[in-house]
């Protein structure tokens, strides 16, 4: 069946060996999906003119919500009337993205009937992204999502975004915290912030069960909750000998069956703080120097395991490059037990939000506000004691300023007198 619009440039994207989204959209267009048909034509026009034809903005959600829908319109409705509106709906994903196949089928059925049928599983925030529907379908879709599937819209705009976590204890032996429970709890606790905008810009919670950080919280989240431990790495010396003797394959077999494992070259020498030693019989770890990089645990998972006194490190301020450059999050609370109902953590977050709302500029992420007004001001506001673990390479970083009030004896500085002695 011939499609409404010729797409010679898009067709090029079907020629490689990889799966093509163009083929997927064409398949839906052939079945009679008018939105997909016009979408193909619009994409071809954009490729030809090297210009976008989408207009963003406007509508934000359903009644009572200030987020979850991203308004999108085509600026050539004369040529592509079926995608004159093409709004995106964000659906809050369940913790760790566990679904039944029944739920996934129902979501697709709703979207085939009331939207374009195109989805993005998942957006980088973690939501299910349903691409392309019309204004009049927003409320009916929301009704079916909430009443038939027990699902809700996610965050967008200046809201709390849908919190996201790794698989955590459901599948991972290294998980030091229950990321799924944390994410579910925070989502329920902060419903108002998720659905009604109040911040200077977006705010993201992400939680990883261990320092491997599978959800890349440290690179993306305004608040990263990363599992860790504060006692010693557990060592099974017999298993260490098994690795050294070639009886156990390193990396859980990820590098294939090997008999040439060199514990010195592949583990001891690669420890970033050189806190390990092996004398041919016993592996020793100087745990006070361990920075929880987990390289050794990753290479020898049967011999080494995280400690048993587990909790989380709370870091703040990561962001992708928008106004300023990309930024990783910084340690704020080196260790917190992070046990339900997470009261201590939530009280801390309320203080953070109060400070950011009062001091953040429009479209300024938390990390940028901290950078502009200083870590010291932030710490005062959220009532945290400065800690060397908040400073990158503290033994080498000279940019640490002391406050006279916090140094025993203090000191006084008279700027006028100083200028008399230093006139130039």
């Amino acid at each position, binding site marked *: 069946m011939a499609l409404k619009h010729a797409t010679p440039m898009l067709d090029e994207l079907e020629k490689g060996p990889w799966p093509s989204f163009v083929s997927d959209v064409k398949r839906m267009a052939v079945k009679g999906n008018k939105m997909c048909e016009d979408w193909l034509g619009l994409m071809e026009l954009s490729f030809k003119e090297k210009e976008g034809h989408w207009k963003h903005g406007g509508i934000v959600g359903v009644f009572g919500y200030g987020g979850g829908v991203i*308004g999108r319109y085509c600026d050539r409705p004369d040529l592509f009337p079926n995608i004159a509106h093409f709004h995106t709906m964000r659906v809050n994903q369940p913790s760790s993205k566990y679904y039944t196949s029944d739920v996934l089928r129902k979501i697709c059925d709703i979207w085939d009937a009331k939207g374009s049928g195109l989805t993005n599983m998942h957006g980088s925030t973690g939501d299910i992204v349903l691409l392309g529907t019309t204004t009049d379908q927003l409320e009916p879709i929301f009704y079916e999502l909430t009443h038939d599937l027990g699902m809700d819209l996610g965050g967008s705009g200046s809201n709390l975004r849908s919190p996201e976590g790794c698989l955590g204890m459901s599948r991972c032996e290294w998980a030091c915290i229950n990321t799924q429970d944390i994410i579910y709890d925070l989502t329920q606790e902060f419903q108002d912030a998720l659905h009604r905008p109040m911040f200077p810009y977006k705010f993201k919670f992400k939680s990883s069960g261990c320092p491997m950080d599978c959800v890349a919280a440290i690179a993306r989240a305004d608040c990263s909750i990363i599992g860790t431990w504060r006692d010693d790495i557990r060592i099974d010396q017999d298993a260490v000998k098994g690795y050294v003797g070639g009886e156990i394959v390193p990396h859980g077999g990820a590098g294939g069956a090997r008999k040439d494992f060199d514990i010195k070259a592949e583990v001891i020498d690669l420890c970033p703080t050189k806190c390990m030693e092996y004398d041919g019989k016993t592996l020793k770890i100087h745990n006070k120097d361990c920075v929880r990089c987990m390289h050794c645990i990753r290479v020898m998972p049967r011999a080494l395991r995280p400690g048993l006194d587990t909790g989380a490190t709370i870091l703040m301020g990561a962001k992708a490059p928008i106004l300023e450059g990309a930024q990783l999050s910084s340690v704020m609370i080196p260790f917190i037990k992070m046990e339900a109902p997470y009261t201590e953590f939530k009280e801390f977050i309320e203080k953070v939000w109060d400070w950011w709302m009062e001091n953040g500029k429009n479209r300024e992420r938390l990390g940028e506000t901290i950078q502009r007004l200083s870590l010291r001001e932030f710490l005062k506001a959220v009532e945290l004691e400065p800690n060397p673990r908040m400073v990158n390479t503290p033994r080498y970083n000279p940019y640490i300023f002391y406050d006279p009030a916090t140094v025993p004896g203090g000191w006084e500085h008279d700027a006028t007198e100083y200028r008399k002695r230093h006139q130039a």
Partner: protein
Amino acid sequence: MSEEAKAKIIEYVKQQKKSKLYFNDLCKAVPEIKMMQAKKIVNELVSEGKLKYWSSGSTTMYMLPSEGDVSKEEEGMN
């Protein structure tokens, strides 16, 4: 207090040249109120239909219902 603050916010929005304002801008109308409290007041104004949200997808702004009528913008698109 809440009704008085609501009136101040609406008056402030009407006086601005820009049709879309950030939440921080609205708070300038009621500097005596903490932002967390102001948020509740602004949301009440939205619920009452006296203000409405506008979002680019990444940022949310506020405007009077008379401004940028989405239904009018959408007229003729179908």
